C-alpha cells in the first residue's frame, strides 16, 4: 500500500491538473467546474474524524493521481478479457475512451440517446452545463466535487417517455492503465422518461497490474411511473481503487431497483443515495460484496423519503475472507411529509476468517409518525452444525463450505429478476469462490 502523503500536496496536485486541463478555457462549463474545484479545495479530502469516513482507510488513494485523458490507447486486439451478454446492446469504454469496435448500439429504440461525454464535451458542452445547473448534486460527496471539476469521460443516456417495451443496455467501463497511477474521472447522466422501463447493467472491470483510481459519479433520474433496474458490477483489478457516488432521484410512482455487486479492487467505496421525491415511489436497494486479501469494500447508502406512501426495501449481504474489511452504513431518512412510509433494511455479513472484520451501522432519522420502519444487521460465521450435517452425508468439508457460502449469497442473487443478468453475476460470483478455494482440504 502506498504511504500516506500530506493531503495539501494532493489538493495542490488536483488544482494543478485542473489548470492543465481547463486552465485555458472560459466557457460556462469551466466556470461551473471552477466552483466545484474550489469546493473540493475548501472541503478537503475526507479524514477519519468525519462520521462518514470513520471506518474507511483511504490511504491507497491519498496520492497524486494524474487524470487520464480519454484516447485510443487500447483496442479489441489488446486481449481485453471481460464477460458480457452478447445479444444485448452495449456501450464499451476502455480507459474512458468510447470504443466502437467493442460496442454494439445498433438496436437502440428511436429517440433514445446514448452518447459518450467526451463527444458531448466537444460538441455540446452547454447541454452538460444546463444539466449540471438544473440538478446540482454536489452534496453527495467531496469526490463528486472533484469529479465535477475534472470529469472528461462517461455516458449520457436519455430514454424518452412512454417507451413501448422494456429496454436493456450494458454500460461497460474497462480500466487497463497504460501508465502508472492514473485516475479516471467518469460521469454518467441517465434520464428516464415517464412510464418507460429501462434496465441498465453497468460493469466496471479492471485489468492489468497498474495502480489506478476510478472516481465515478452517476446521476440517474427516474420519471413519473418509470420502472428501472440498475445492476452494477464492480470487478476492479487487485490494484484498482474505485470511488463511486450515485444519486438516484425518483418521481411519483416510479420504481427503481439497484443491485450493486462488488468483488474486486483494493478499495471500493460506494455512496448510493435514493431520493424518493414523489408519492408512491418505490426504491429497492440490493447489494452483494465479496472481499478477501486486504480489500476494503465500503457501502454507504442513504434513502431519503420526502413524500408520502413511498416504500424502500434494502438487502445487502457480504462475505469476507482473509484480512478483508467491509463497511455498511445504511441511513434511512423519513421527512415530516413522508407519512405512510414503509422502509426496510437488512444487512448480513458472513466472516470466513478470524481476521476479517465488518462495521455495520444502520442510521434511522424519522421525522414523521405514521411510518413502518424495520432494520436488522448480523455478523456471523459458517454454522458448524450445518457444516457437519452436509459432511455427514459424504460431502467434503471444502465443498460443504462452498455450498453454504453460495447459499448465503443466493438470497441477494435471487432478487435479480432477469435470468440472463442473474446468470452473468452468478458466474462471476462462482469464479470468485473458485479463485479463493486454493486452500487445503481440511
Amino acid at each position, binding site marked *: 500500500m502506498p504511504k500516506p502523503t500530506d493531503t495539501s500536496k494532493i489538493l495542490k496536485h488536483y488544482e494543478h491538473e485542473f489548470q492543465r486541463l481547463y486552465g485555458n478555457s472560459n466557457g460556462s462549463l469551466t466556470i461551473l467546474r471552477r466552483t466545484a474545484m474550489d469546493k473540493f479545495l475548501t472541503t478537503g479530502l475526507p479524514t477519519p474524524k468525519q462520521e462518514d469516513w470513520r471506518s474507511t482507510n483511504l490511504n491507497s488513494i491519498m496520492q497524486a493521481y494524474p487524470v487520464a485523458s480519454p484516447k485510443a490507447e487500447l483496442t479489441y486486439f489488446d486481449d481485453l478479457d471481460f464477460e458480457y451478454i452478447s445479444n444485448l446492446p452495449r456501450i464499451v469504454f476502455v480507459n474512458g475512451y468510447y470504443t466502437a469496435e467493442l460496442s454494439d448500439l445498433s438496436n437502440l429504440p428511436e429517440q433514445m440517446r446514448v452518447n459518450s461525454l467526451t463527444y458531448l464535451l466537444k460538441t455540446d458542452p452547454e447541454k452538460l452545463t444546463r444539466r449540471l445547473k438544473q440538478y446540482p448534486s454536489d452534496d453527495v460527496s467531496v469526490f463528486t466535487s472533484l469529479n465535477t471539476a475534472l470529469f472528461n469521460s462517461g455516458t449520457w443516456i436519455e430514454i424518452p417517455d412512454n417507451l413501448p417495451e422494456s429496454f436493456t443496455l450494458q454500460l461497460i467501463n474497462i480500466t487497463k492503465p497504460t501508465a502508472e497511477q492514473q485516475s479516471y474521472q467518469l460521469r454518467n447522466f441517465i434520464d428516464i422518461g415517464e412510464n418507460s422501463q429501462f434496465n441498465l447493467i453497468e460493469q466496471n472491470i479492471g485489468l492489468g497490474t497498474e495502480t489506478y483510481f476510478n472516481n465515478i459519479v452517476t446521476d440517474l433520474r427516474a420519471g413519473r411511473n418509470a420502472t428501472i433496474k440498475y445492476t452494477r458490477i464492480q470487478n476492479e483489478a487487485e490494484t484498482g481503487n474505485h470511488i463511486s457516488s450515485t444519486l438516484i432521484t425518483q418521481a411519483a410512482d416510479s420504481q427503481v431497483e439497484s443491485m450493486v455487486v462488488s468483488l474486486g479492487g483494493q478499495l471500493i467505496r460506494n455512496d448510493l443515495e435514493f431520493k424518493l421525491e414523489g408519492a408512491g415511489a418505490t426504491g429497492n436497494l440490493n447489494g452483494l460484496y465479496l472481499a478477501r486479501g486486504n480489500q476494503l469494500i465500503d457501502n454507504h447508502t442513504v434513502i431519503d423519503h420526502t413524500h408520502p406512501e413511498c416504500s424502500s426495501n434494502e438487502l445487502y449481504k457480504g462475505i469476507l475472507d482473509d484480512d478483508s474489511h467491509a463497511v455498511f452504513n445504511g441511513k434511512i431518512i423519513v421527512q415530516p411529509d413522508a407519512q405512510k412510509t414503509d422502509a426496510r433494511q437488512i444487512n448480513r455479513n458472513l466472516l470466513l476468517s478470524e481476521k476479517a472484520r465488518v462495521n455495520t451501522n444502520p442510521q434511522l432519522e424519522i421525522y414523521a409518525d405514521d411510518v413502518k420502519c424495520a432494520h436488522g444487521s448480523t455478523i456471523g460465521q459458517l454454522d458448524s452444525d450445518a457444516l457437519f450435517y452436509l459432511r455427514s452425508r459424504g*460431502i467434503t468439508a471444502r465443498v460443504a463450505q462452498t455450498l453454504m457460502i453460495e447459499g448465503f449469497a443466493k438470497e441477494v442473487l435471487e432478487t435479480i429478476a432477469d435470468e440472463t443478468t442473474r446468470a452473468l453475476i452468478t458466474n462471476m460470483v462462482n469464479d470468485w469462490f473458485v479463485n479463493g478455494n486454493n486452500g487445503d482440504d481440511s
Partner: protein
Amino acid sequence: MIEIKDLHVSVEEKEILKGINLAIKPGELHALMGLNGSGKSTLSNIIAGRDGYTVTKGSVTWNGQDLLELSPEQRACEGIFMSFQYPVVIPGVNNMYFLKAALNAQRKYNGDEELDAMDFLTLIKEKIKEVKLDESFLHRAVNDGFSGGEKKRNEILQMITLEPRLAILDETDSGLDIDALKIVAEGVNNFRNADRGFLVITHYQRILNYMEPDRIHIMIDGRIVKSGGRNLAQKIEEQGYAWLEEPVTV
C-alpha cells in the same frame, strides 16, 4: 459390522458416556432407549463423527478398521448414516442439489460412476414417493421451513437415497403423527435387508411395534444398563425406568 468397546466420552471434562459396549451385525436392528440426557445422541454423534467430544477410553471399529480415525464424510462414504434428532436448516442450499452432491460424493469415493442430472432426477422422484413428500420439497432449501414431521421424512429420504450399510435413527419417530410414523416405519422396513444394520433410538414402544427389533438396550447415565428382547420395550412403556436406576452391570 460395528463394534463399540468400553467407550468413554467426555465433553469439556464432563464424562457423558461411561463405558459403552455394543455390537451390531449385518441384518440386525437394535433399539436404544433411555432417559433424556442419558447419552443416546452423544453415542450417535460419536459414530457419525461430530467434533467437540473427547474419547478418553475404548474403541469403535467398523468392519475391522478404527472408525474414530475417519472424517465425517469418509464415514458417510463408508456407509454410515445418521438421521438427526434435530435436522439442520441450510439456508440457500437446494435440497435436490444437496442430495445429488451427497450421492455423487459417495459414489465417487466408492469408485462408482456419478449420476448425471437426468438419472438423478428419475431416481429421486421414485424415492420421494416412498416417504410421501411432495416433489416441491426437492426445490426448497434443505429443511428450510419444513415442519418437524417433514424434516424427519426428509431424513428418511436421504437414507433410502444414500443406501447406507448402518443407519442410526435418532428419535426419527419423535413428533410424528400416526400416518407419518407409519411412513417412516415402512421406509425403514422396506429398506431392511441381510446386509444392513440399524440403531433405532426412541422413547416409544410404538415405533418398535412396526419394526421388530432384534435387541433392545436401555441407557442410563452414559451406560447401557440392560439389554434384552422386545418385551423390554413393553416393560419400559408400562413401568418406566425407575426399576433400572441402579446400574446392574458395567
